[in-house]
């Protein structure tokens, strides 16, 4: 979207508007036409996929700094429970998702593999943070750090950051949902976003 050079009115929060602008642009790109298929006519497969993606139970598995952000994601402000992924299970037997939140060390790697093996199919892994993705700041001299958890277990979604903000983890979860769904989800722009976007005076 282009924008003319008119200066914003006095008292206008340019920064906030800019952030919103980014979000709206992103979201508008994602809007997909509502498919006309009837719910009853959708295949059983799709129903089960829907169930899988809307009820992803992560295993309580915190490793390091990112674990705190994972907790923050499940806590009040971000509340990952909104997406159905809030039921953290302490035992891997009942979990669907392992969020590898932090640095994987040599000593931990075997245990991590064990926990992954204990999880029942279907199961997914999110590598959260740069340590889990590729060793992060511990790459060069980290003699005890595994350079990427994908050398141990298969990873579905990589969430970068050190540590990633909770919003990013939620984004990662939504990308995982897309993956389970097999296509990009239908994204409905919230009404307040469109309303707000319309109110912006110097937007074309």
């Amino acid at each position, binding site marked *: 979207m282009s924008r003319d050079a008119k200066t914003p009115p006095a008292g206008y929060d340019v920064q906030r508007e800019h952030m919103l602008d980014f979000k709206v642009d992103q979201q508008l790109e994602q809007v997909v036409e509502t498919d006309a298929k009837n719910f009853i006519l959708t295949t059983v497969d799709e129903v089960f996929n829907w169930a899988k993606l809307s009820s992803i139970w992560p295993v309580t598995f915190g490793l390091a*700094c990112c674990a705190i952000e994972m907790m923050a994601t499940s806590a009040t402000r971000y509340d990952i429970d909104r997406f159905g992924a809030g039921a953290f299970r302490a035992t891997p037997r009942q979990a669907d998702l392992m969020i590898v939140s932090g640095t994987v060390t040599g000593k931990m790697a075997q245990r991590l593999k064990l926990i992954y093996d204990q999880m029942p199919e279907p199961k997914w892994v999110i590598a959260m943070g740069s340590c889990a993705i590729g060793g992060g700041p511990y790459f*060069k001299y980290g003699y005890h750090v595994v350079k990427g958890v994908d050398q141990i277990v298969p990873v579905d979604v990589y969430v970068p950051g050190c540590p990633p903000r909770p919003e990013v983890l939620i984004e990662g979860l939504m990308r995982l949902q897309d993956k389970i769904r097999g296509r990009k989800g239908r994204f409905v722009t919230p009404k307040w976003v469109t309303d707000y976007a319309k109110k912006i005076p110097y937007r074309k």
Partner: protein
Amino acid sequence: MATGDKNLTGWADQDHVPGIKSELLELNMGPQHPATHGVLRLLLKTDGEIVYQVTPVIGYLHRCAEKIAEGVNYKQWVVYTDRFDYLAPVCCNHAYVTAVEKLLKPEVPERAEHLRIVTAELSRIASHLIALATFGLDMGAWTPLLYCFREREEILNLLERIAGGRMLYNYFVPGGVRYDVPDEQWIKDVLSFITMLETKKIKDYNDLLSYNKIFIERTADVGVIDAETAKAYACTGPVLRGSGVKFDCRRDDPYSVYHKFDFEIPVGMGEMGTVGDCWDRYMVRVREIEQSCRIIRQALDTLPEGPYQAIPLNKMVKVPAGAAYSRTESAKGEIGHYIISDGGQIAFRNKVRSPSFCNLQVVEKVGVGQMVSDLVALVGSLDIVLGEIDR
């Protein structure tokens, strides 16, 4: 270890009922366990619910920070100090830069010292909030966890506005801080947040958790660490103060400009049970939040004008040869850095004495003879962070 063995004698092979041989149950708690605050592993030997031996096994998060210190320069290593105690990263920064400054001897501006104290105390509050939260969670109370996280988010917002990061800031540099206060509004927001915390939120926590009957039953008289044991095991921070020892590096071994401020040192008084029980340690943290609020208010009220860096950011730091040990009061206790410099840009050796490492050791002694549930309370009340134990 030694204490465990003493208690074991006469148990392993004893026949409680003639003809039926009983033995101790070996239990492996962790490294993936909800109550071990990360990747701590406790090897237990239990008789039913009673623990007869507990051996902590650590190192599941050994991230080789001390080796890395010999490979990256002094300014770069601030990043790694953030990741020791990731709940109170600014306090860890503080310990490191004080050690470097001991050798470097720069003229740290007064304004930088004040900003350091403000951010470090905010960080300490955030860490203590997590400590209350996770201790509540260990006791089975979910809701305080989320309330504490709610308030912590406010602190993270404030720190994000001054330091740029949400959780790990890399805010201190040898010789000052990285950024100045963003605007006057920031100071006002900090003060209003602190007032809100002091007047409303701490009362909420006390109503919900601290003075809850069940909570007191679970924590009072449980996991008692007496003053002698705490000193012998070099426990520091809220663990030592919970045992009734009035010692705080901020007052007794002052660094930065803490000597300018007026604050009290809360100690465990055995209000609900014995001095040094889990409830005392918990309550010391609650009261320290109040004292931190006091310090922040004083530091912001007397915030001097002037520069905030003694050394330009893009200038390489070369530390004169020598060795220095410096300790500061982190949220978990006394964090010390022993830096040996050979005059170059990179430290020759950098040893970190982390408070959780020493605090956790006491579990071997105090955990014996407790119930499994009490062991969870004990470990929870020590408020360990595995990032700084394993480093």
